[in-house]
């Protein structure tokens, strides 16, 4: 439907409606702020629309969209970190404090701390943790999405879990 000239817009609207919430949550967990997640999600859909011709149906459409979203998020984060490092302003602001001021975050203190702990992890470990802990994917599904072996994913998840648990222990949050 997306490939057809007359039906492309309708087909793409259907695709967005189907996957937007799931992709938004995935992106939001990585970039944290709603405005950033909104920008990244829109860019992700625009890239998908323009690149749909290159989509090979060897993988599912969601897997393909998910990869675009992950790459866009990581690129966005790298740029943001560089800007923060050069500007010396928000960079030092702790995630927990940032979330306290965010009108689109209504979690409790413990959720803020969880995000703080998550943002201390390397990007890859954070993505693996999010997929397993929040999205409850099996290692096999994650392996397809991330193009990584099940063993490596289990190791990444284990390291991430230990680090987060350690953070809570250090903060004496029980």
């Amino acid at each position, binding site marked *: 439907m997306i490939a057809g000239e007359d039906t492309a*817009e309708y087909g*793409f*609207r259907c695709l*967005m*409606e189907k996957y*937007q*919430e799931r992709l*938004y*949550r995935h992106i*939001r*967990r990585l970039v944290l702020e*709603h405005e950033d997640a*909104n920008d990244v*999600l*829109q860019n992700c*859909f*625009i890239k998908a*629309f323009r690149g749909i011709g290159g989509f090979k149906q060897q993988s599912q459409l969601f897997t393909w969209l998910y990869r675009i979203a992950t790459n866009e998020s990581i690129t966005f984060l790298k740029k943001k970190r560089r800007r923060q*490092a*050069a500007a*010396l302003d928000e960079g030092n602001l702790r995630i927990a404090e940032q*979330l306290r001021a965010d009108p*689109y*975050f*209504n*979690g*409790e203190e*413990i*959720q*803020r701390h*969880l*995000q703080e702990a998550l943002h201390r992890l390397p990007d890859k470990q954070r993505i693996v943790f999010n997929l*397993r*802990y*929040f999205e*409850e*994917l*099996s290692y096999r599904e994650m392996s397809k999405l991330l193009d990584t072996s099940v063993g490596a994913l289990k190791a990444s998840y*284990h390291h991430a*879990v*230990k680090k*987060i*648990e350690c953070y*809570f*222990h250090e903060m004496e*949050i*029980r």
Partner: protein
Amino acid sequence: MKDKRTEIKQELENTAPFLAGLKEKDKEGFVTPPAYFHNLPDRVLDRLQQPAQPVKQSPRAGSTIITWLGYLFRTPYAVRLATLLLLLAGGLYLLLPSTPSDTEVLFGELSPEEAGNYVSDNLHQFEEELVLEIAREYPDLSVLPAPPRETKETDAYYDELLEGLEEESLKDIL
């Protein structure tokens, strides 16, 4: 087959009991503005219909270099950079072979005899005091002039010599 959620929870209980308990709450805290997902497809399609944005000019090389220099010379990085440079300089000093002096180069491959010959051939180029000092220290070196005798002996020798000389001859010499 076990329910995915139960499997993830059991997996966590073994390694991170606190995280396992937190997962029970099933809350993340991320919210979106009202009707965000309802309007999103329209916003994306609007952007797709707009003419392509002109390519964003990349920042000039000069400003990029200044940004990076500013980044490098922030106190913690500057200290690390200086330490690294010092270590490198020290390492190079220790690793590189020391340059031999001109004298070492000149005499490094000479035998004692050759060295002695050279000295006797070029005696006029050496300072008198140095030659005398060496002669006292190494009396066996034949190339050097004999050291002066004790003062009394010398005086007696010259007295005898003077006595043997005719007055006329002495006047001629003087």
